């Protein structure tokens, strides 16, 4: 392969991207060397197995990905603003919407939520870490290397351009030759390993490591949403693994699953993709529901209404999520009977979702609502999500879907549910738990500015798109050459920049608050209700000096009433902790090399990388490191300092 084929050439925007990547990388390398931080980076972060640190790395990476996906989005909106725009050509536009979709779902929404789960779930259930801290680190590095692999396609080899759904035969070797599509397949495959492992890890953590006395139906609702989500992950991700593997074999080894030759069946890809893809939607929305429930209950200063119904509706949604995938291709022509079945199952999801909406409203009833920024995100979610939800039901009506399908009506719908659901939740959750993670709150004033910019921008951007869709504008076109579409497209682009401004203010707020915000003195920043607020801030690495006995929902509220804390000097015992290790990083590094080699179909290097990965597994198998104990005196010292005793 020639060098000018290896690097992407000929695009000014990409050259600019390359330059900025080079600058940022060298700046980072310089700073690390100048401040002699390499050792610190390795010892404190790259080898960590602490769920809180891993969670923070997840969230930082997700914010970076949100930036990248957001820039993609703005570029698309610029191109679509006016009919005569020549900002992007078709090819470049195709790459951008493909990476936008993939990055936002796989490398932004999921890791953001998994990051929050990482930090909060063990704290909420009174656990000292994950069930398998080593595996947790492995998961993170699998995601991180997968994301890196996907993102370097931007400058090396060329980005995938067949849409985030990568429908065959377009995405097959015959019509999309070259490394672009391979980046998609292997980037997702690599990060998928980690997601599945996290799913198993969190399930075991929640099922086996709850504080003594805590029954399943006394768990905080975010923990419940995590458990249900992990259940979906465990059952959905293997489908993606197989689908990706089959297409990889198709592309690299010439098999005939989804090809036009050899009687392959391209639509089978769509079938498998959506068998994973639909549950995936719930993987990113259920934790959001959990976050909103926590935030609303806390700032309404009121117990969550209908806790049992909330839990059961999540379980029901999880079950139904596996029975509706065909609604993504009603227009395939599987016949009226098949479409009827999936149409009805799709609409049924509205019932448990409706129950949840009404339960949130009922939680606000007779409450004392405090409009903090986290609460504002949660409140904005309710009406926005309802619009997304009802249009989802309309899309679920197969006969009408023939008109909605592939149009901007659909685009508007899924942005309404994914942004108003997932993205608002990410912001709400980050603002809410920020003091727990970093020891200080985010500035509320700046937070409100970013909130209003983002939320208004969001509605201005996506509401007009419903009408564009009804007016026949299809998704994924790089040009808006019909006069009637002009005004709405301009409005939409303006809204997109509003969202961009909101995000920029949010990021600035992180910096501003780091500099100027008051440091937290107690662990209980918002008068919280669940156990994560029972720990001091910053949270000691062992989380709980003494684990409380839980016999109620809203466990911390009960503790506060009884005057208990998680520091009982009488009951202190040495705490067993896992050792930090560089193995996960190295193992995933090898798999990264293998995947990168497979992208370019360099089989010998791929085999070497895989062998490296296998050797790391053998190393792990013979590794009998038992961790270490935190002595009582050490715990006393840390806790007294943190609690100001």
């Amino acid at each position, binding site marked *: 392969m020639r060098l000018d084929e290896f690097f992407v050439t000929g695009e000014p925007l990409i050259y600019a991207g390359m330059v900025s990547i080079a600058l940022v990388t060298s700046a980072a390398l310089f700073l690390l060397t100048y401040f002699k931080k390499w050792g610190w980076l390795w010892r404190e972060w790259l080898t960590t197995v602490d769920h809180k640190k891993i969670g923070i790395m997840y969230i930082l990476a997700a914010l970076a990905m949100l930036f990248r996906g957001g820039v993609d989005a703005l570029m698309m909106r610029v191109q679509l603003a006016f009919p005569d725009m020549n900002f992007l050509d078709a090819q470049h536009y195709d790459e951008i919407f493909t990476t936008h979709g993939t990055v936002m779902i796989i490398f932004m929404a999921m890791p953001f939520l998994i990051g929050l789960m990482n930090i909060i779930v063990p704290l909420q259930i009174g656990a000292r870490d994950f069930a398998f801290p080593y595996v947790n680190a492995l998961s993170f590095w699998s995601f991180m290397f997968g994301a890196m692999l996907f993102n370097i396609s931007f400058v090396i080899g060329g980005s995938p351009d067949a849409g985030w759904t990568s429908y065959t035969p377009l995405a097959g070797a015959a019509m999309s030759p070259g490394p672009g599509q391979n980046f998609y397949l292997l980037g997702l495959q690599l990060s998928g390993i980690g997601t599945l492992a996290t799913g*198993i890890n969190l399930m075991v953590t929640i099922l*086996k490591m709850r504080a003594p006395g805590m029954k399943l139906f006394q768990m905080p609702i975010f923990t419940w949403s995590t458990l249900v989500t992990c259940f979906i992950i465990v059952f959905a991700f*293997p*489908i993606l693994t197989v689908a990706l593997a089959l297409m990889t074999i198709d592309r690299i080894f010439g*098999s005939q699953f989804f090809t036009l030759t*050899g009687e*392959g069946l391209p639509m089978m890809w769509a079938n498998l993709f959506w068998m994973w893809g639909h549950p995936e939607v719930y993987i990113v929305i259920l934790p959001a529901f959990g976050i909103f429930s926590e935030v609303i209950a806390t700032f309404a200063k009121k117990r969550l209404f209908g806790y049992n119904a909330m839990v059961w509706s999540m379980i029901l949604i999880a079950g139904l999520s596996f029975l509706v995938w065909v609604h993504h291709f009603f227009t395939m022509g599987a016949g009226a009977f098949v479409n009827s079945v999936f149409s009805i199952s799709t609409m049924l999801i509205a019932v448990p979702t409706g129950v949840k909406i009404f339960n949130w409203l009922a939680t606000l009833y007779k409450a004392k609502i405090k409009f903090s920024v986290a609460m504002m995100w949660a409140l904005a979610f309710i009406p926005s999500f309802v619009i997304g939800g009802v249009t989802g039901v309309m899309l679920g009506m197969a006969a009408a879907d023939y008109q909605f399908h592939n149009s901007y009506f659909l685009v508007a719908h899924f942005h309404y549910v994914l942004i108003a659901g997932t993205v608002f939740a990410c912001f709400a959750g980050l603002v809410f738990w920020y003091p727990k993670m970093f020891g200080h709150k985010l500035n509320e004033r700046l937070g409100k500015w970013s909130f209003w910019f983002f939320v208004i921008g969001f509605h201005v951007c996506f509401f007009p798109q419903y009408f564009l869709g009804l007016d026949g504008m299809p998704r994924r076109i790089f040009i808006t050459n019909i006069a009637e579409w002009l005004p709405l497209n301009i409005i939409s682009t303006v809204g997109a920049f509003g969202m961009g401004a909101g995000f920029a203010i949010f990021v600035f707020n992180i910096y501003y608050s780091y500099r100027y915000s008051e440091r937290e003195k107690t662990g209980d920043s918002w008068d919280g209700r669940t156990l994560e607020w029972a720990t001091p801030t910053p949270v000691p690495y062992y989380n709980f000096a003494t684990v409380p006995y839980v016999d109620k929902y809203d466990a911390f509220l009960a503790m506060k009433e009884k005057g208990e804390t998680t520091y009982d000097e009488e009951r202190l015992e040495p705490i067993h902790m896992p050792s930090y290790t560089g193995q996960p990083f190295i193992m995933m590094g090898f798999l990264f090399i293998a995947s990168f080699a497979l992208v370019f179909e360099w089989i010998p290097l791929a085999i070497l990388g895989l062998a490296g990965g296998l050797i790391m597994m053998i190393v792990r198998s013979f590794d009998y490191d038992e961790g270490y104990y935190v002595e009582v005196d050490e715990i006393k010292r840390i806790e007294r300092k943190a609690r100001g005793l």
Partner: protein
Amino acid sequence: MSAHELKTGPLEYRTQEGQMSIMGFWIFLAAEIVLFSTLFATYAVLFGRTVDAPTPGHLFEPGIVLVMTFLLLTSSFTCGIAVHQMRKGSVKALIIWMVITLALGAGFLGFEIYEFVHYVHEGATMQSSAFWSAFFTLTGTHGLHVTLGIGWAVLLLIQIAKRGLTPVTSRKMFIISLYWHFLDVVWIFIFTSVYLIGMVV
């Protein structure tokens, strides 16, 4: 994380780590069921799409498949005895029965490789048609699992020989046994829905 160790019951269940690892593995097996069922679904949907390549009914031979099935069924049985011996505390019997299990597994693999080579010679390859792509991927994935299982078990036997039975080694052994029985479950479905149905239809 707790160091509390129970005094009774099978060794692998006594520590919380043991319990958690075993539970985690059960969850992993559920994911494996989904993984294989996706391959089965692909196989089922692509059934009959052979183009010019030979049809399955033409190539499948009942004899060799039955032998493979009996090898794997027996290995599952001997693996069960190995765990039984482990619970009785007999390292030596455990190792002997495990070696028999792995030998049977290796025999199974040998037949499978022979079978694949034979099919390729007849013109049924991964690249020849959608049906054969699906066939080789499904059975090949199972075969790969068996191979990995053998490698993994060998590593573990070394550890057991070195360290004897501890909560950690017996937990690992127990998990291997779950894995091995599970591969047998998968094979039962391959035997039935790939080979038998392939020969009937």
